[in-house]
């Protein structure tokens, strides 16, 4: 896949015809007429994995590696349903997980079901620190 650079920014202008929402509706097809005709759903107004990864490329090209990593973690969460997002967030809050394995299980779920490898690594690291710092409700 093409690596985007700062010259691609803003992609809504440089790639208007190729940026699409998660259902594949192109940005330039999202018009008021289409909305009024009921052809556009809220899902079409969400960012796609490709677009967020393009933003990660641009951030990295601008020297913002940590921002790029965040966008890459975000890209892994695009297809994760809201309830699992909130469940994971809740589990990461202090004292919510009783054991390290609860966090590790959540990491496995995200890795296996949604291909969220970076997120899974991130949670596994949290599990290690939480154990060290007594943040588990053991």
């Amino acid at each position, binding site marked *: 896949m093409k690596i985007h650079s700062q010259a691609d*920014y803003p992609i809504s202008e440089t790639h208007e015809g190729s940026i699409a929402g998660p259902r594949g509706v192109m940005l330039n097809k999202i018009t008021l007429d289409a909305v009024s005709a009921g052809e556009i759903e809220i899902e079409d107004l969400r960012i796609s994995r490709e677009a967020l990864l393009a933003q990660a490329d641009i951030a990295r090209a*601008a020297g913002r590696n940590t*921002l790029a990593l965040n*966008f890459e973690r975000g890209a892994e969460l695009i297809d994760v349903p809201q309830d699992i997002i909130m469940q994971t967030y809740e589990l990461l809050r202090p004292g919510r997980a009783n054991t390290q394995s609860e966090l590790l299980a959540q990491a496995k779920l995200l890795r296996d079901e949604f291909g969220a490898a970076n997120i899974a690594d991130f949670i596994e690291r949290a599990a290690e620190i939480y154990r060290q710092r007594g943040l588990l409700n053991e």
Partner: protein
Amino acid sequence: MDRPPSPNRWRRYSDWDDRPLRLDKFAREDAANGFAAFKSPADPGAGIKISRGSIASMDGVLAHEFDMIDSFIADHHLDLDVAEEAMAMSSDTLARMLVDMNVPRADLVRLARGLTPAKLADVVSRLNALELAFAYSKMRPRKTPGNQAHVTNAKDDPLQLAADAAVAVGLGFDELETTMRVSRNAWSNALACVVGSVVGRWGALFQCSSEEAEELRIGMAGFTSYAETVSVYGTEKSFTDGDDTPWSKAFLVAAYASRGIKARCTSGAGAELLMGFHQSQSLLYLEARCLCLQRGMGVQGTQNGGIDGAPLTATIPGGMREMMAENLLAVWLDLECASGNDARATESEIRVGAKIMPYLIAGSDFICSGFGSIPAYDNSFNASLFNAEELEDYLVLQRDFEADGGLTPLPETTAMELRTKAVEALSAVLEELNLAHPTAEMKASVIAASGSRETTTFSASECARISEAIETRDLTVIDVIKALSKRGFGAEAQNLLNLVKLRVSGDYLQTSAIVRDGRVISAINDPNDYAGPGTGYRLSEARRDEIINIRDTLGQPEVLRDQARHKKAEAKRIVYLDAGAAERGEDTAEVVIGVSPAFGLQLYQTTGGRNLSEVLKCLINGIECTGGTARVVRMHHTADTSFLGLSAAQLSGSGIGIGLQAKGTAIIHSRDRLPHNNLELFSNAPITTLDHYRALGCNAARYALDQEVEPILVPTQGEALGARYHAQVALIHAIETGLVDPDRPPENLTPKFLGDGEEVKR
């Protein structure tokens, strides 16, 4: 005043007690209890040890003793490719680089990736307030400055939210933030603000500050475009007390990105102190930890500079400077910075003005992370540093310093149009979606109201019902766009669609992104390139024209128009009859009144609002009652008070003359004195009354008759008369000097008073 004197007290202290400043409380420095801005004995020394590609110790703490904040910073912030090089540099060198315009921002940003919290704090603590402001101006990520508004009201009234959001956008705010008095009103607040925010133009980003999970859901429904309530703290205990960890917050930040919602974190001095978990460390060091954490999380920006802790920070010595230092740390770490100037840190308007000045001059991604666009009592975040009450002061500061504070003066008629359109648009949406049916009376009261105390609108329970219906019926921004379009608000529908389309590309997720003129600008395509005078952000001519165009400015046409209003009335009171060339008088009781060139010809009233006919009548009256004789002479060769008086004195049989300018400045002069060494002077024309002029006439006659004289004092209350009148005075004086003819000799004038001569108004 009528205060009884207390023994052994200089009453000046009682005067000082009455100043708003004395409502502020000031804390003594006490590092052990967390009251230290820049340095505390408990702050660690800066240092890093890297062994076999991993961090063995940081700021004096061994890796196996890291708390969760240290661990996160070591894992995600510190760049080991830079750390040894950066940490080996002296703090003085780094401090000098920050204020050296020849050192590019990018070089400093690169080095910051390798600096520990203690090192970062040590470096910026070496800069004084001026250097902090300068470095901030050089280091902030986006070139074009911006601003953020609070849009809330005490009733959570959606109609008012829509109207006020439209006004805030009209004023130029780039972001709007709302919150609720009653938390379940979040959905109606969000819908109302977003509709108001697309009236007139589109592009203002909007957030609804509420509980984390709900905020994310509101964002997913398309009502909001950013979030900034992702709070982080500088100690482990504060973090867990806030019911989060760096990992939970970083996860939330990634979740926002996954939903195409812009996010920034919140931190700032005083938060740990307020929560009671400060570890006896300085405010700056704790904030440096927060900011390293944020860079590590990969959030694009921060809201810092005190925030909720600002009022507490401002009680501590150096507190205001500390807030500048922590904002500088944020931008040095390459984070977008919404630079506080948010919670009102003081009751003193002088401290408010002083607090904002460095930011106004330096510029900031968002100068205020919440400027109260609504009255202080309607601000549901609590009063801001600036609120609607002081908004025009801010506009004038922009004009004074030719500094872009992000706002643009809004003409009265435009404000009314925006409010009307916003209320109509929101009402249409509420009706179309069968959420509520606002009455004409409600709408009219909201459109005209300055704040919620003046509105007749939805009850608290009606607001809650609207909000609950939006939530439970799963309404989204799509429904709102359709409703607007169907009801004839096509422009607003299109604007709202443009706004939500931003999330498909995610362009506004990049650092420091805002929307201007329909385009996303950020640190990517509008990077701060400051490298000395003539570089970085400069006001364009067009932008300068916007900023200086405040309302009710004065020019010569206004002055002439104002004077002309009195011409007709004066013509009914007085006629000035020419009586030939003025010679020196013989009468030893004579007082000559020398009037200025434009007196009664182009100018008819003093700056104190006295009719010139009445002023002249009072002077003559005073002279004659005391036994003198009065003669009026028009001077053509001068408009200067002293020379009017001296010339009159030289023509006077007694040697005493009065000089009188049309603007009301009057002088008693004696022919044997130097021009600027007069006998009496009324220099404050705006507060000079007809009684004063009469008394001046009396005194002039007494000088002429060689009697004892008690000088007349015009009491002043210390008004800023210069500020109120000098523009007008200078314009009036230009009219006078325009008529000066140096070669034309003085002429006698016989004033003929018409009508009821005794009806002299006071």
